[in-house]
């Protein structure tokens, strides 16, 4: 071997050692070993536990009502971001010294990051499968038709994977930025809070915060889940539920006999002939001209009525259906249109996050040699 080494002149030295692509399998193998030895596998049962809790809360709500879908979209996006962040937040900073040594020995940062990306993709895929499977097992119904592939559950898995993976690479970048695990674990809650607050999921954001919202994975994640879940066409039960709860409330006021007659007597009744050509309306108009009748019609009577009784007059189901439909119409947003174009657009946005964070990680780590001793 030494003789062979001698034959190679310095000019072709660069070609003689492993290049960027050839270094990726070295690190990928190392990471897969770490998966077993360094207990990195723990993130998988953790994902199952979280998904179980999530499924129990979402069953019967997600994909059923507009509110349940909104809550579900927020909760699923949060779970994906949580999983992604925990996968990667410590992976680089915990071995920063080792990276520095290996970089010095010829390791390419881009190969190292690429290996991490492949390894993290493997973990995120596993977590996606676990999350969707466990939530389905606990009662969340994914049995609808997809718009991109015809199979909804596959599309939903793509979304869950992309959100988890984007969060994972964001955490990977943070891990590259932080010089110790303590710093990384201190920074992470701030990032999570930022993601949750600026997702716009729990409350509507002021206008100035909207550009910030566009920078969060959570907002894009929520939007794509809402679009996939067809949030626009789900009934909104908030108003109906509110009315339900107010059934026993009493409404008091004063009403005149004239107002009651106006309400009760409709055009058909007025048109009914009583004698000859004279109709009920004619007789009523004639009577209304009389001062005595006018006095009676304008006399006020106090009344008290239960809201439930009032609804019963119009029919409870009719009122509920009408309220759910009208409230859903009011909550319509073109952002949640269930179209293939819309959903793929969101996927590309999440893909954009992934690419940006990967590039940022490489750039950040390229400066690793500048660390102060």
């Amino acid at each position, binding site marked *: 071997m030494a003789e062979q*080494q001698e034959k190679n002149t*310095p000019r072709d030295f660069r070609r003689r*050692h492993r290049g960027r692509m050839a270094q990726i399998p070295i690190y990928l193998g190392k990471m897969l070993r770490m998966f077993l*030895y360094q207990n990195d596998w723990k993130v998988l049962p953790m994902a199952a536990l979280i998904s179980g809790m999530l499924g129990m809360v979402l069953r019967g709500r997600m994909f059923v009502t507009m509110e349940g879908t909104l809550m579900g979209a927020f909760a699923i996006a949060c779970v994906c971001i949580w999983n992604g962040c925990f996968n990667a937040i410590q992976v680089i900073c915990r*071995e920063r*010294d080792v990276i520095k040594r290996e970089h010095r020995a010829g390791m390419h940062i881009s190969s190292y990051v690429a290996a991490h990306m492949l390894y993290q993709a493997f973990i995120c895929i596993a977590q996606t499968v676990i999350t969707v499977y466990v939530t389905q097992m606990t009662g969340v119904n994914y049995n609808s038709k997809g718009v991109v592939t015809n199979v909804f559950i596959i599309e939903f898995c793509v979304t869950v994977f992309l959100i988890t993976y984007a969060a994972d690479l964001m955490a990977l970048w943070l891990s590259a930025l932080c010089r110790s695990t303590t710093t990384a674990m201190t920074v992470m809650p701030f990032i999570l809070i930022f993601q949750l607050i600026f997702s716009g999921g729990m409350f509507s954001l002021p206008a100035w915060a909207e550009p910030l919202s566009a920078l969060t994975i959570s907002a894009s994640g929520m939007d794509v889940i809402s679009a996939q879940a067809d949030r626009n066409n789900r009934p909104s039960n908030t108003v109906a539920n509110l009315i339900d709860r107010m059934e026993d409330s009493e409404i008091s006021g004063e009403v005149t006999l004239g107002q009651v007659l106006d309400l009760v007597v409709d055009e058909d009744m007025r048109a009914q002939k009583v004698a000859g050509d004279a109709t009920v309306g004619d007789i009523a108009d004639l009577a209304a001209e009389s001062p005595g009748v006018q006095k009676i019609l304008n006399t006020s009577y106090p009344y008290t009525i239960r809201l439930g009784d009032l609804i019963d007059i119009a029919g409870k189901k009719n009122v509920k259906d009408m309220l759910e439909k009208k409230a859903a119409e009011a909550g319509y947003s073109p952002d949640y249109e269930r179209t293939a174009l819309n959903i793929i657009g969101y996927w590309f946005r999440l893909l954009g996050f992934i690419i940006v964070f990967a590039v940022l990680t490489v750039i950040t780590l390229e400066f690793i040699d500048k660390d102060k001793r």
Partner: protein
Amino acid sequence: MQFHPVGFILQIVFGSSGIVMSLFMLLYMAGCWKILEKSGLKGWWALIPGAREYQLSRCAGREPEGRVLSVVTVLQWLSEIISSTPPILRRFNVERLDLTVMFFGVIGLTLTLIIFIYFIQVYSGLCEVYQTRKRWIVLWVVAQWLPALLWGFCKKYQPSWKVADMNAELAKLDFGGSVSSIEDGLTINLKERSTMEFFQKKILLRDIHMNIPKGHMVLLLGGSGAGKTTFLNAVNGYEKADAEVTLNSRNMYKQYKQMQYDVGVVPQTEMMRGKDTVLYTMLDAAKLRLPQWVSAADRRKRVEEVMDLFGLRPVQNNLVEKLSGGQKKRLSISLEFISNPSLLILDEPDSGLDGVMARELFEQLRKIADTGRIVIVITHTPDRVIDLFDDVIVLAKDSAQTGRLVFYGSVDGAREFFDCSRMEQIVKRINSVEEGGDGLADEFVMKYAEVQNG
């Protein structure tokens, strides 16, 4: 809020819009001007916010705190200007003016608190330098203009040392000289290794010239902060210096990528993944360090050879974290040794090892050197293994805090030069008085320069 152009200009200059406050600021700046001059610095720095605080901290011997203080002061100054001048924001059509003003106001308040803490540290340092009681800090905090004027203008208050003294010493100790490159061995001609710290050039090493023939095992001695690791990083090209370093007639700086695998650097700490096995760690290192044309079988053979050499074969399937301190050191060295380097540099390989294990390790290094390689070792306990070394390099921190070459030559030559029998005594002689040494670094730098210049 009404906009006053005069107040605004005063604010930009003094950082406060009130006329009385501006007057106090003016007095403070005048005092600082004189304080800076007393420490040998340019007085006009006192006029520039941020720079003033930094230079003051230099006078107080609190430079690191000064850097933070200076940056935070500038930020606070900017946030104060923005938050108190809505017309400026209006001119730039800033939406939600109230929110922006409030935001910068909160930021300014937070920064003021940080400044307060750092100022106390700097004033505390000033009290030490001016040898006054610490109670002066209270006056500095309450009315900083008053002590600034007193200490600046009264002759009674004089600093115990000056910043400028260091620069004078630096010039005094300057000397040149270089050695011609040798064919078989390492030639180092390092003029200067400097770094920019806070817009200021800081010289870490200067004037180190030597030839190390191949097959030599060299001890690198020096007190803490003398620049030993910086020197080794400059030698192997990892942190480039104003230098020319050749190994076997090949320029290390110009051909860094090509020679990367011909130099092995073993760091002080292990820097290995504890959860991987010894064998896989070695195999991965071999994949990275050996040329791509080496077959998997040859690679495996080389790994086994190195593991046998360093006695790691019995633990090849163990996790790295389960190894003993000595085994970890040997593994760390063997990772670098896989590529058969001509130059092996080791930073304190014996730290954490007992005498017997350290001796065994150094004997192995001696054997490596005997095969025609150059081995440079930093150790803080050299006397137990000094018989294994050929040469000694001694680095010391001079009065300007720059790493200098105090000696390079044989072990016996070092004993004679420093007039002491043990290597650890050499370190004591060159270390500063504050570090418990004799503080003779400058004298030995001069002495070595005289020897070199004949």
